[in-house]
């Protein structure tokens, strides 16, 4: 509430009292990046209180995964964060493999890293496209989508689908890469830096972009840590935490890449950190491609991985293993496990509890977007309403990840 001084009106008063206006944003809204509902208390254009109401995409993933075998869980994990589906697949599969004690061959690990990093680039491209679209600029959307289509073409070469893949298996991968994949990826790596320069020319020095992002939505380091923010948004506030380097998994310790950080913690920093991360991910893809050697792509343990098709014609044991794995699934030993990984949104981990059966007893997804969304309120407070849209875009929530 505030008192404005105005010229005296007919009633002779020289002061004008205002009240807080409570408005509802969403859940059907073009700028909320999904079905997010915000209840905002406004004093003029200044936000005094912001309360996110989520749950409009609650799908009951965790409950449903308790009624499916471990291998079937791979189909569920990538539909949570549909923009970086491979990260969820990887985190889930790593957790099950830790529970089982499975040995994943090196070729499978490298291919997993290649696909996850390509997916991270695709997710950041979508972030840029929609983030700048929220600002009102239509053109960069079409440019970033052009590159994203090329990456999705690569995924279609390997997995057969552009999105919501079913390629990772517990113990390795479903099948090997086709021959066209490596030349096509190398062509993309060769052309991508020129595209990145194009994007930079499109918006990095644009006056409107700079004035709408610099100094807006500042999240200080202490606030970020108190609100359990992780991922690129945390790195933009000055904390260099990246689980690919802090707790390496799946061979990430072999690759040489930098972790971009910024200190200002505003929307501009969050945009620029993700921009630089794209070139770092490209470096990882190139290094992994260079080190790719021919070899098996599945754990040879027949109790976990399906036997190859040719063996089914000759070996009875292979048929029995195949039958047991497909109808019943494998039985990990009793225990609990947690594997932290880094998704495009932040720290992602699957906490699995096994009771010795063929289906998990409890699957808890440490979803990065749910914790990240809590940082929206301190970022938006005492800011303008129009800046709230940029804050949501810069925190990059995916509502499937938030609501699970």
């Amino acid at each position, binding site marked *: 509430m505030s008192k404005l001084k105005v010229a005296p009106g007919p009633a002779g008063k020289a002061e004008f009292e205002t009240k807080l206006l409570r408005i509802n944003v969403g859940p059907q809204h073009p700028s909320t990046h999904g079905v997010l509902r915000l209840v905002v208390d406004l004093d003029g254009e200044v936000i005094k209180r912001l309360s996110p109401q989520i749950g409009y995409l609650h799908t009951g993933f965790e409950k449903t995964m308790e009624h499916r075998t471990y291998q079937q869980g791979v189909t569920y994990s990538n539909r949570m964060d549909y923009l970086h589906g491979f990260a969820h697949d990887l985190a889930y599969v790593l957790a099950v493999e830790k529970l089982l004690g499975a040995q994943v061959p090196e070729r499978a690990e490298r291919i997993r890293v290649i696909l996850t990093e390509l997916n991270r680039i695709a997710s950041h491209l979508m972030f840029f496209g929609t983030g700048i679209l929220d600002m009102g600029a239509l053109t960069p959307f079409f440019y970033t989508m052009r590159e994203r289509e090329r990456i999705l073409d690569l995924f279609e070469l390997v997995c057969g689908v552009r999105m919501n893949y079913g390629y990772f298996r517990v113990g390795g991968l479903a099948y090997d890469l086709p021959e066209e994949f490596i030349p096509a990826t190398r062509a993309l790596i060769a052309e991508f830096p020129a595209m990145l320069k194009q994007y930079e020319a499109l918006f990095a020095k644009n006056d409107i972009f700079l004035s709408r992002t610099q100094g807006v939505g500042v999240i200080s380091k202490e606030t970020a840590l108190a609100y359990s923010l992780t991922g690129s948004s945390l790195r933009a506030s000055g904390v260099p935490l990246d689980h690919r380097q802090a707790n390496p998994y799946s061979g990430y310790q072999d690759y040489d890449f930098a972790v971009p950080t910024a200190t200002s913690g505003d929307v501009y920093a969050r945009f620029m950190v993700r921009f630089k991360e794209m070139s770092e991910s490209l470096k990882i893809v190139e290094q992994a491609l260079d080190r790719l050697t021919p070899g098996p792509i599945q754990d040879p343990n027949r109790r976990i991985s399906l036997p190859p098709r040719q063996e089914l014609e000759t070996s009875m044991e292979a048929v029995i293993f195949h039958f047991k794995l497909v109808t019943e699934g494998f039985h990990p030993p009793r225990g609990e496990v947690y594997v932290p990984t880094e998704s495009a949104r932040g720290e992602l981990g699957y906490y699995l509890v096994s009771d010795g059966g063929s289906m998990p007893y409890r699957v808890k997804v440490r979803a990065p977007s749910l914790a990240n969304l809590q940082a929206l309120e301190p970022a938006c407070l005492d800011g303008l309403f129009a800046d709230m849209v940029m804050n949501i875009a810069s925190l990059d929530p995916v509502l*499937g990840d938030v609501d699970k």
Partner: protein
Amino acid sequence: MGLRELFEKDVQELENEGILFSTLRKLVSWGRSNSLWPATFGLACCAIEMMQSTNSRNDLARFGSEVFRASPRQADLMIVAGRLSKKMAPVMRRVYEQMPDPKWVISMGACASSGGMFNNYAIVQNVDSVVPVDIFVPGCPPRPEALVYAVMQLQKKVRGEVFDDKGLALPMVEGWKR
């Protein structure tokens, strides 16, 4: 030319000279089918593929969906893209009721059409139980080309060019009578 020539000449000749014959109904449905403006109702993964269908490779705008209107009052097509949770269902019904007649609904993806891979306490098992659906698009997620095909089928339905198995023409869809 005089009115006499209008009655004496052949239809083909008149068409060559630039005079077309039609009924008002056909003309209006031709106009409607070629300017379907979707309302943004992207829920989950299918929303991403819906966005991809508007990019430069699969351009949905060339079929008339030039803009995705954020306000349902300015839209006539609702593409339900993604899994509909039971918490969101009343919101969706309200958005549907805010759309002016005539309006059509495309249920995009397996989750909207039948609940998909989620059969639990949280997901509505068929969007048809909340809003009347015209076209179901299978897929998880359907390719952008599949969504474009669905829009083309809806265009046919709007114009009344849809036939059933026996070859009988199905009546033109009159959205305001549902």
